[in-house]
């Protein structure tokens, strides 16, 4: 009843091919955009922005990056954390070499470096498939992590071995460093994430995206009808690592402010993989849902558990969080292996007929 396409006629191909062909979807997305751009900044506290919204958006972008590779092109990767690290270190090097450079430009350029690294580590995918490939992407994870520790040039030979973000201004507003307000940082992260999501959604609908999906569904058949695995697979690695790299750069520049190599350890890869799979493989909206779920759940547990009378030690909360997250992941995989995006789709089907049991 609330979600019906009845009466919405398309008279041009353009209208038929639109990203949101239904007016309800357009209204929905407008509401979400209004909340994100106006509601959250107006109402949220600084704590909420820095500990929930900004990391959520950054992780959503990383999850989209991994989704391009795993969900759309079917190549399993466990090296996401390291590719995010490459983006972060590249951005750090660029701003320390060119202090005057526009920070948005730095972000977008840093992704190019991680894309290049991603292509190099994507080369084995031409020979190796499935779980074997997943293990080889761990080579990227451990090798790059080692590079972040052992190559002093990457962190400007800081005594601490960490990268620390300097203060940078854009159009007179402080955007990075400790003096920047959470609101500014939230806005930049939001704009970059939305813009890149829009870019990826068009890429996926286009020729390249359809090639990725053909490779995913059956690579030999795809090859037989003229998809070149070399370009399809490597472009998937490049786009995926680009997005992860930008997400990693934003993570350090607009959220953490400083990062040690251990910030990009394998646990980060797993976190993003959880987001991608729980959200739904091959779904952009699912990446957002997965990121929200995995990021907000532990934060919520930390806030909620003490408030409902569980007076427990901080480390116990930490352990309980681990247990609950692990159990929930298994529970979700069992009840809905296609992720939250699939649940959303089912909900839309239900809304279409509601309040009638059958259409």
């Amino acid at each position, binding site marked *: 009843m609330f979600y019906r396409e009845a009466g919405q006629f398309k008279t041009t191909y353009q209208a038929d091919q639109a990203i949101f062909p239904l007016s309800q979807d357009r209204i929905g997305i407008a509401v979400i955009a209004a909340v994100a751009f106006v509601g959250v900044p107006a109402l949220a506290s600084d704590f909420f922005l820095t500990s929930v919204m900004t990391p959520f958006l950054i992780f959503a972008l990383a999850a989209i990056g991994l989704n391009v590779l*795993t969900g759309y092109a079917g190549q399993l990767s466990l090296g996401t954390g390291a590719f995010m690290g490459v983006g972060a270190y590249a951005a750090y090097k660029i701003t320390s070499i060119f202090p005057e450079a526009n920070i948005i430009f730095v972000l977008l350029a840093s992704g190019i470096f991680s894309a290049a690294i991603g292509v190099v580590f994507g080369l084995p995918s031409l020979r190796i498939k499935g779980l*074997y490939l997943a293990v080889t992407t761990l080579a990227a994870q451990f090798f790059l992590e080692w590079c972040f520790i052992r190559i002093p040039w990457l962190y400007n030979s800081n005594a601490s071995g960490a990268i620390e973000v300097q203060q940078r201004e854009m159009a007179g507003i402080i955007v990075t460093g400790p003096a920047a307000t959470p609101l500014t940082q939230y806005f930049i992260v939001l704009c970059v994430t939305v813009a890149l999501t829009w870019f990826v959604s068009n890429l996926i609908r286009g020729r390249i995206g359809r090639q990725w999906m053909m490779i995913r569904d059956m690579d030999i058949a795809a090859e037989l009808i003229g998809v070149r695995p070399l370009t399809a697979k490597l472009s998937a690695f490049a786009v995926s690592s680009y997005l992860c790299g930008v997400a990693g750069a934003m993570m350090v520049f607009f959220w953490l402010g400083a990062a040690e190599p251990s910030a990009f350890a394998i646990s980060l890869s797993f976190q993003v993989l959880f987001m991608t799979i729980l959200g739904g493989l091959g779904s952009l909206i699912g990446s957002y849902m997965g990121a929200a779920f995995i990021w907000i759940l532990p934060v919520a547990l930390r806030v909620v558990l003490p408030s409902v009378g569980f007076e427990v030690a901080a480390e116990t909360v930490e352990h309980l969080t681990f247990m609950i*997250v*692990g159990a929930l992941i298994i529970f979700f*995989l069992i009840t809905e292996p296609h992720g939250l995006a699939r649940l959303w789709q089912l909900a839309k089907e239900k809304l279409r007929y509601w309040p009638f049991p059958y259409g």
Partner: protein
Amino acid sequence: MLYDIFIDPFMQMAEQPDFLLQVLWEGFVAGILYALIALGFVLIFKASGVFNFAQGIMVVFAALTLVGLYENGVPAYLALLLAIGVMGLLAYTVERVVMRPLVNQPEIILLMATIGMTYFLIGFGEFVFGGEPKAMITEELGLPTGSTAFEIGERGLLILQHIDIAAAVIAIIMVAGLGIFFNKTRIGRALRAVADDHQAALSVGISLNQIWAIVWFAAGIVALTTGIMWGARSDVSFALEIIAFKALPVLILGGFTSIPGAIVGGLVIGFGEKIGEIYWGPLVGGSIESWLAYIIALIFLLFRPQGMFGERIIERV
């Protein structure tokens, strides 16, 4: 530069043969332990097609259970029995709660489920036993401690830790035992049948659920053994979990489905890693152990994508 890479390490080896032997021995022991972890992976992958990421944490969990029980006043051997019982319970629970509802799902979903299990077991283990490192009860279990030094040549010296020798012996016994179990017993044959073809096995009356519980139990016992051996060399703590990552290159070298592959792969990685670290590591700044194994495995895979002993992959459209 070229001299440093291609000649100098070999000169060092030739000059100090006793040191080389020591390095080789270290590599051998590490390799055995990697092989043991890889064995746990292979057992489960063969029987159910699940890439069990939780094997590393099972090692820690088993060892922690053993040590934790002992610290609470349970005699060592009883604690060992109880730890085996806990692994059996874990196997049963995993089969019942995780594997059975997820049957026939794509392998990535199963992999994720085992990563979820890893998280759960980390939280659970720390919750019950605490996060601080514990010492393994080596002596109480009757395992040898101490070391023997052999003189080699005129001034060479080779030091063998007794626990390492015990580890090697136990690993060999374990592998032989598993080999006999797989080839001679009824359940072992059923396991092989399941590994070959799930549906065919079901159709001749083999219970998949039972087989999976058994296989997870076997992997649990392998994990307990690994935990004891590894814990005796260092402490028992959650840092041990990373040894699971050490075992993955072993797996791709040896093939996911091959027990001999796990052993040969483990030894190759063990030797390669130690020799690489000692003789070539200083050239690039050291601690290359964390990724060298992966690079070895990666290069190998480029030539033989199914691993050393893996079954040949034939794809049809």
